[in-house]
């Protein structure tokens, strides 16, 4: 059963459209990430769910009721803010108890619930401290506690980890996943960090320019990005995207870029001959052998692998992953090959639609996977 539903939601601030025709069906107990760059509308969407912003048009449902006109406090939601928004004059215990107090939960019952929540988040020894006496990670847990204590139907989290240092962020990510598994509650999580979205979510809603670009499980977003924007936004280092053109010959497609061409095999029904783009993730490149000639431009050593940037003859840059034991020097000539089975093809334009028929995989070659043709130049 769908727990949270947004239907045809629009949000305008004056003449600026923040969210355009958004449709999302979130299942009960799902962990959903709203992912996108700054200004893509993800936070506005979350704030509309919370009741802090009102949609210009469209309908928002939580559970079995339309909540467009329900104030935030009555929506049975809890929210964790990026800045934590703890009440500075209240102790940890009072902060956690506050939502209960406002809902007139009797004092004795309240104390028990606060104690239980504090126990779960290891906050018991800190209950009498003021927020400013806590570290960032502890404040984060108090903010979580304030959300958890009244067991709401939906949790809304607005970039809750972005103020923490990298190590703590990794730890809290694991904690949140565990918490979600334990509580089984619906969680909507806003982030611009694709790693958080990929590791924590059941499904990711990728947004850009106020529009939903793709709403799918992390693996699908990675392996079958709906369009060129999603493809370039997800993945570190990013996907190599090359502009070129598509040609068809008896149902088989070929992608031609300056310097090389790739056999695209069979493509979906939207494919048209003419200008298009090809995307290939760094792991889809083989550096060291192949028909394409280039020069290493930059090598980043991360320890377990090297990220190698190769410049092709006409100035095109391709990024690949290489084993740490083979270190190319800058300026050294290398050969390069592209695994056509892992290539994505996109229609023209920054949000050009993906044209492949299937999900690209390394293990199971798709119908469009064949060998690389000779370099044409």
């Amino acid at each position, binding site marked *: 059963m769908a727990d949270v539903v947004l239907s045809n939601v629009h949000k305008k601030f004056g003449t600026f459209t923040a969210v355009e025709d958004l449709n999302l069906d979130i299942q009960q107990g799902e962990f959903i990430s709203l992912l996108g760059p700054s200004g893509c509308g993800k936070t506005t969407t979350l704030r509309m769910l*919370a*009741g*802090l912003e009102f949609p210009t048009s469209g309908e928002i449902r939580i559970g079995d009721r339309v909540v467009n006109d329900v*104030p*935030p*406090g*009555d929506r049975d*939601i*809890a*929210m964790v*803010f990026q*800045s934590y*928004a*703890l*009440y*500075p*004059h209240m102790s940890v215990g009072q902060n956690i108890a*506050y*939502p209960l107090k*406002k*809902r007139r939960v009797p004092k004795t019952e309240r104390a028990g619930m606060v104690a239980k929540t504090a126990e779960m988040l290891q906050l018991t020894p800190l209950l009498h401290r003021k927020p400013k006496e806590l570290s960032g990670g502890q404040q984060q847990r108090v903010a979580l506690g*304030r959300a958890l204590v009244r067991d709401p139907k939906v949790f809304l989290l607005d970039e809750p980890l972005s103020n923490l240092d990298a190590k703590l962020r990794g730890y809290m990510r694991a904690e949140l996943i565990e918490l979600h598994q334990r509580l089984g509650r619906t969680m909507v999580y806003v982030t611009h960090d694709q790693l958080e979205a990929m590791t924590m979510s059941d499904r990711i809603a990728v947004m850009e320019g106020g529009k939903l670009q793709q709403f799918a499980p992390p693996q699908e977003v990675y392996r079958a990005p709906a369009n060129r924007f999603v493809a370039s936004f997800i993945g570190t280092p990013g996907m190599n995207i090359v502009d070129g053109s598509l040609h068809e010959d008896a149902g088989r497609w070929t992608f031609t870029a300056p310097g090389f061409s790739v056999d695209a095999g069979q493509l979906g029904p939207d494919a048209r001959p003419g200008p298009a783009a090809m995307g290939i993730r760094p792991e889809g490149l083989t550096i060291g052998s192949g028909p394409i000639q280039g020069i290493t431009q930059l090598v980043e050593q991360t320890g377990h692998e090297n990220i190698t940037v190769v410049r092709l003859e006409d100035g095109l840059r391709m990024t690949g992953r290489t084993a740490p034991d083979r270190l190319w020097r800058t300026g050294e000539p290398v050969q390069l090959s592209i695994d056509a089975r892992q290539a994505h093809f996109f229609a023209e334009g920054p949000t050009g639609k993906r044209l492949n028929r299937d999900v690209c995989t390394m293990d199971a070659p798709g119908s469009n996977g064949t060998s690389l043709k000779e370099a044409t130049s």
Partner: protein
Amino acid sequence: MLAAVGPPAARRPDPQRYAMAKQQQTVLERQYSRLGLLLIAPTVLVFCAVIAYPLVSAIYLSLFKIFTPTLEGTWVGLDNYRTLLVKGEFWTSLRANLIWTVGTLTLQIIFGVGMALVLHQNIWFRSLARSLILFPYFISTVVAVLVWKWLFNDLYGILNHLMISAGLIDWPIDYLGTMPNAMISVILVGAWKYFPFVVIAVLARLQSIPDQLYEAARIDGAGPIARFFDVTLPQLREVLVVIIMLRAIWDFKEFDLIFLLTGGGPVTSTQTLPLVVYKEAFALNQMGMAAAYAVIMMLIMLVFMILYMRRTQREDT
């Protein structure tokens, strides 16, 4: 300055270690210390000239019986204080002083916070209203009081005229010549004159309260009134403490507004301590007694000051 030697050793009372720490000062540190002394020297000199000297001088004068025009006097020790404390005038003035201070300060805070909350909203002409609200505070006290005296005038005053026209009263009210009207009028004019200070200070604080606190409170189920008491007021607490302490001191020693409006009258009903100081010094030509009143006033305000300093110290720890 010299204590800035560094590690905890310098802070301990152990003289040997202190000496060692002092020796450990590098050439550069010593240079900085000297520079520091040089930089604070002008302030210290000015402080001595305009604050320390008059203070000591006032205390010294209060031990003499002095005829103001000639400034010649005889040593009387603490006699001025003894006379003052058994005189009824001191106690009635102190009482008037406290009524004035508490009354006007309370109204300043209520109007000030209320108006700040209004001006914090997204209302029309907000920036214009924010500038206009400062008007009473910027206007010269003499001008303001003259205007108010005309408004209050029992024969020609517009207040009486309007109230009679509206049928609220049958007979003109004597606002400044009878009690308790005179005290109420003084308190009201004081509140009108000084509430903009409260507005500005509170408004500045209101604007720095993070919106997310209000949003969190809304999600936690707090209505508008609960949000005021659980978010706004606790956030304003510190600035209100500072405002109350400062305004209490300023109102307590207010002279021109009361002197010009009622001159302390009727009889001595609105005669606060600063007015007594003036009367003793220049009407009765008793400079020594005036100094004694001034010293007592200073001691009373010192209580406020100590409370304020204790409070800020507690906040810091």
